[in-house]
């Protein structure tokens, strides 16, 4: 190997070692800068995906229209198309109204945000949203929807942030179960099964906890914790006893694979 190649190799390895010993805060700053570079492309991609999704929805509606037209030949095609379009708008309207109502009645100061990217990695469950420190987002702020908890903020860039979802193993939430005195730590699974909305595991329950499927799980809101008390996390699916404790499998309240709009809890009202 040439001497120059060896020197270059050592330089690259030295850079890698230097980067690896940076403090976590510095790494997050670098990641935030990188996220700011990626963001315009992600936003454009999300817009294109939405447009394509709408085209898909339109085609599906046309298929349905075709079936209807065969059955009811006298119905006017144009009128049906208009009605379907209005139905789409009404559904969107209802969704937004529900979110707005939740925001107004919530005791938290909520910042609406839109998911602009989902993690492309195999082992982590994160999403990127279109709000950053310019809008008041900070690390560790909870993220939720009108249905329940989504996750918490990990990295904050100027106008974008990364959210670790509750289906990720590293996102741990102190939890309590409705109708019982049981409390435990809820986290995601390292390996989520394919084709499901994700499962959560609630650990450190008592071995003889009398839990029934369908019981609701809420955040416990420990002092100095990240998550306020009383946010819905999911429902108990099954309970099993382990040598030292009890564990419940929980279905998340929010379908994280379909969610597009979320709120960041930026403070109390």
């Amino acid at each position: 190997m040439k001497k120059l190649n060896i020197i270059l190799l050592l330089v690259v390895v030295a850079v890698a070692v230097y980067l690896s010993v940076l403090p976590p805060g510095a790494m997050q700053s670098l990641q935030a800068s990188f996220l700011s570079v990626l963001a315009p492309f992600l936003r454009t991609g999300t817009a294109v995906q939405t447009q394509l999704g709408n085209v898909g929805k339109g085609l599906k509606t046309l298929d349905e229209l075709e079936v209807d037209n065969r059955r009811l030949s006298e119905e006017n095609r144009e009128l049906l198309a208009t009605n379907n379009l209005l139905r789409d708008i009404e559904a969107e309207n209802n969704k937004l109204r529900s979110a707005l109502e939740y925001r107004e009645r919530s005791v938290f100061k909520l910042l609406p945000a839109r998911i602009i990217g989902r993690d492309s990695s195999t082992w982590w469950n994160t999403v990127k949203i279109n709000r950053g420190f310019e809008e008041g987002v900070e690390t560790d702020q909870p993220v939720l929807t009108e249905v329940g908890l989504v996750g918490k903020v990990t990295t904050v860039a100027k106008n974008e942030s990364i959210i670790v979802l509750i289906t990720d193993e590293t996102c741990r939430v102190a939890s309590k179960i409705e109708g019982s005195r049981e409390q435990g730590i809820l986290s995601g699974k390292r390996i989520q099964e394919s084709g499901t909305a994700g499962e959560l595991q609630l650990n450190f329950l008592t071995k003889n906890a009398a839990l029934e499927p369908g019981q609701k799980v809420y955040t416990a809101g420990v002092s100095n914790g990240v998550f306020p008390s009383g946010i819905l996390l999911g429902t108990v699916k099954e309970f099993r006893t382990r040598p030292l404790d009890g564990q419940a499998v929980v279905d998340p309240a929010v379908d994280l694979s379909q969610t597009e709009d979320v709120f960041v809890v930026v403070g109390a009202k």
Partner: protein
Amino acid sequence: MRVAAGLLATFLGVFLALLLQQAFPPVYALHGSRLLLVPAIFCLAAVSLPFPAMLAAALFTGFVCDLAYLHVVGGQVEIALGCSIIFFVILGSIANGFHPSFERGRWWPLIPLSTVGTSAYILLQFAMISLRRQSFEFGDVVAWRILIPGALAAVFSVALYFAVRQLAGLLPSSPFPRRGF
């Protein structure tokens, strides 16, 4: 000039691949595996570029991959910056060994390199996570999620090679061999 163009194309390709990967959801029919394009693009660069340029490509690819996959929760970093750089330097050094034969028209080593490189990268992430979380959970789903992206990368690497060769053919001095089918 030829090397600079190749390096620039690699940077652009890796960046675009990272963006594209975000757009692809997990393939539930394949055990929730994901399409990973970056290692195959890097392998093509590593076999076609000289060693110093390969190192520059490894530095860039590893750095942006680390930034893309950096996972910090509660002040704990799961995989530190720089780990991917070391991985791509090792993968690139092996791939660069095929550089002379690639110049003579033998492009097929790109397929096993992309396959092994892609699976090895996911395996490395899994191993580092297991180490950090101090628990090792290995099962069929984990194995599939490591192996399937490698198999997909094999197919992608062939398509990538011929696509890039067509594009490079438009340049006055193509860095790709004329024969080798």
